[in-house]
């Protein structure tokens, strides 16, 4: 296991339209938004309004706002209305763009009291989307390397099947050896929405250009979350023939792997047609919900109905049922793997779950996960392995492991 087993999971894609300010909680600073940086909320323009669409921003980032001045035009179920600012200050960051939708009460922009705080507010609002689209380029290499290393026993919590999109568009004839990306307009739009790096997508359209379905395939394929720092390809930097000790994390993973070998396991593979799931995903994707969150939620709900699956055996004699349903999903991070936990996944609504998941992933990548966030007693692990696009449907095998970490 020269290299860690990389988990692959869906990127927690969040378009800029996502209304929450989880970004501000992304850093492990205080969760409270500083008093000097205020949020502008989506107002309820009528008693029946649950969400509003931003028609246009009347002010741009950096503009001074006075109390009572119209900032944005919001479309409700009845009419377009101007929304005023309740405070004086500067429009620091616009979090929901024109045309975007936000639930009533969610933040749509940040207002900074002074000009200096504008950049701070901006940083807060952007840290949520700061994890740049993974540099998917190197994923193929890593996966290809990792694949042969994976022990045949799929006891591993995550087996990345190297089915993911391989080499980028360097093969495109028109792209002059990778210098230019040739993608159709719709493909470009989708790539922006789904946060797919076009440089890594193989084009299957005429003359090798990238078309929409290539982007869709890449988005649901198994991108490896490269670290925001240097995307170090695996090959260079390792001298062959040398002995390199494990890092702590690698050691921990290795230990757990070995331990898991002593746990009785069985595998169940199930083919599921996911039309309903796709439809749901399409609908709420724009609100920042990812496939991971959806699967975690689905798992949690399933566990509610079958609690025995969420139990463990400690003494060889009895079931110990988990008091709560905590779903841990593996996240690959630089140098290893960690499993942040979504607590009470059955009780939390899908949007909050998504947001929480996003936070956890960001923290994990920034190596700022608190122990309680990855280690809450008994957990149910979900690893998303492979999402393959066959024909027009998405067919995936989700391997749920009765992997019990007691």
């Amino acid at each position: 296991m020269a290299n860690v087993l990389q988990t692959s999971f869906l990127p927690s894609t969040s378009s800029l339209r996502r209304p929450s300010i989880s970004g501000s909680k992304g850093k492990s600073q205080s969760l409270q938004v500083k008093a000097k940086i205020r949020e502008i909320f989506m107002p309820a323009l009528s008693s029946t309004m649950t969400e509003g669409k931003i028609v246009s921003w009347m002010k741009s980032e950096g503009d001074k706002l006075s109390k009572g001045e119209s900032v944005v035009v919001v479309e409700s179920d009845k009419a377009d209305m101007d929304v005023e600012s309740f405070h004086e200050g500067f429009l620091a960051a616009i979090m929901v763009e024109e045309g975007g939708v936000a639930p009533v009460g969610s933040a749509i922009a940040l207002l900074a009291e002074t000009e200096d705080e504008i950049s701070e507010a901006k940083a807060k609002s952007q840290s949520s989307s700061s994890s740049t689209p993974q540099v998917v380029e190197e994923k193929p290499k890593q996966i290809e390397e990792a694949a042969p290393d994976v022990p045949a026993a799929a006891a591993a919590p995550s087996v990345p099947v190297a089915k993911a999109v391989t080499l980028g568009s360097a093969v495109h004839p028109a792209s002059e050896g990778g210098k230019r990306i040739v993608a159709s307009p719709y493909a470009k739009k989708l790539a922006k929405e789904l946060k797919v790096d076009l440089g890594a997508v193989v084009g299957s359209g005429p003359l090798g250009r990238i078309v929409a379905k290539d982007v869709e395939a890449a988005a649901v394929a198994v991108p490896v979350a490269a670290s925001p720092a240097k995307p170090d390809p695996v090959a260079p930097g390792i001298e062959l023939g040398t002995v390199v000790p494990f890092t702590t994390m690698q050691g921990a993973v290795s230990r757990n792997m070995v331990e898991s070998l002593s746990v009785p396991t069985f595998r169940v593979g199930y083919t599921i047609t996911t039309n309903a799931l796709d439809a749901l995903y399409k609908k709420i994707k724009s609100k920042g919900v990812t496939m991971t969150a959806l699967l975690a939620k689905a798992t949690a709900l399933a566990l509610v109905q079958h609690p025995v699956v969420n139990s463990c055996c400690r003494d060889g004699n009895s079931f110990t049922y988990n008091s709560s349903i905590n779903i841990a999903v593996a996240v690959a991070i630089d140098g290893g793997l960690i499993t942040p936990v979504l607590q009470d996944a059955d009780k939390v609504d899908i949007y909050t779950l998504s947001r929480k998941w996003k936070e956890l992933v960001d923290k994990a990548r920034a190596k700022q996960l608190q122990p309680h966030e990855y280690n809450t007693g008994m957990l149910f692990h979900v690893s998303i392995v492979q999402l393959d696009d066959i024909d027009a449907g998405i067919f995936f095998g989700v391997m749920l492991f009765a992997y019990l970490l007691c």
Partner: protein
Amino acid sequence: MHSICFQATGVPRSNYIFDSCSPALAISKPINLRFCGLRKEAFGFSGLTHSSSGRVRFSSRGHSKKVSASAESNGSPPKSFDYDLIIIGAGVGGHGAALHAVEKGLKTAIIEGDVVGGTCVNRGCVPSKALLAVSGKMRELQSEHHMKALGLQVSAAGYDRQGVADHANNLASKIRSNLTNSMKALGVDILTGVGTIVGPQKVKYGKVGFPDNIVTAKNIIIATGSVPFVPKGIEVDGKTVITSDHALKLESVPDWIAIVGSGYIGLEFSDVYTALGSEVTFIEALDQLMPGFDPEIGKLAQRVLINPRKIDYHTGVFATKITPAKDGKPVIIELIDAKTKEPKDTLEVDAALIATGRAPFTNGLGLENVNVVTQRGFVPVDERMQVIDTNGNLVPHLYCIGDANGKMMLAHAASAQGISVVEQVTGRDHVLNHLSIPAACFTHPEISMVGLTEPQAREKAQKEGFEVGVAKTSFKANTKALAENEGEGLAKLIYRPDNGEILGVHIFGLHAADLIHEASNAIALGTRIQDIKFAVHAHPTLSEVLDELFKSAKVKAAALSHGPVSEPVAV
């Protein structure tokens, strides 16, 4: 020479105007005042009431005086002409002029070197609207959620390209023959061949390889129109790099087409192509897409017509070189920054449509024989469409209408100008108010406008020292629009609160192109808001959108107490 007898018409003809002192108005039916936005000064009346049966006072020249005067201005005694009026070009402009001329009793001939109907019928308005009708229906049928909201299910709507192309073609043929027949029936001589001016009041025409014919006419109208303009560096092959002429034949529907120019022609084609399944990339030289529209409408149009569709764009760039596709290679477009001229990007697409405007078709007209020089190809004219020569003098008896003069390159503007000229040559002075001429873009939803845009109005207001009022309403408030589930739309009225004058109206929404006429009529007639707001609109109709606008405009109380406005409508 006498008037030619013809069948089936209700308009009795008189002899030539010039040698009869009887008014040209020896027609049984009363004068139809063509209100193409007549300047009230021209008519010199202060009231807004006219009935079509009343005669109108003319402020200027009596007919007979004018007639003999002009006959003498030739410097030669009145000679007999073959025709009262010769029109060079049988497009929309020429046709409109010809019909009106016949109604006024003029012996008219029209010279056409290609096909009757010109651009509009064969390569413009007619086939494009046919294609847009198809694309509108396609888009509707394919919009699952739109259909579902109405409770409908449509399975896999598809199209047959040839069928669509045939629809456009057949329509063009039909209209072309209607036009031809209407002129023939009225006794207009249709002369085939390319027309050239050889001297004052003298035209020659002829087909290649045949001897030329020379005809003389009292008045000549140039109505030769325009052709698609192709900037240099762009190689058009008619298959992969095309202009609107080729596109309207719909010989193919490319997967990815780049449209150079985001004006109304480019916009309409993007609507057609995206509805038929293509993806589109706009290449626009200015920084803004759809530069000709009112900015607020343009913004909304972008949100609805571009963002949600499979369209992307590059602004602020020129396409310096476009190479057609060959040997398996795609069409290659090289872009440079419009300001710095630095190379910016290269696109590889399946096809490119050049929609960068139209160039006047005035070569070979023989203008030099009357001492006229074109400006960038356009024939210089004054506000009465009279041609101006190189010394700045008006060339007598020579007029130019339509795209060839560049004043307002729209089909209905051409025919309005033609009518204006015929009015003048039959003794009534007439100056067309171009601000009352509406324009429309037939995307889905449609865009239409008349008058000034908001920035233009504000600029004028600043110069002339008046306030500008803006009233807006959404189609969301309109019952009919909502019933059709087409609530996306905006109507905007720009007006003067001090006197209720309408400066401009802009509409984006369902049937905008039809709705605008209430506003353009009001501007043409000088109707003020305080008068028109009491007009009743049927319910539920889309026209209530305009009713809303008029009712929500705030005209100052002072204006309400005045009688009919005697100020001129802006020209």
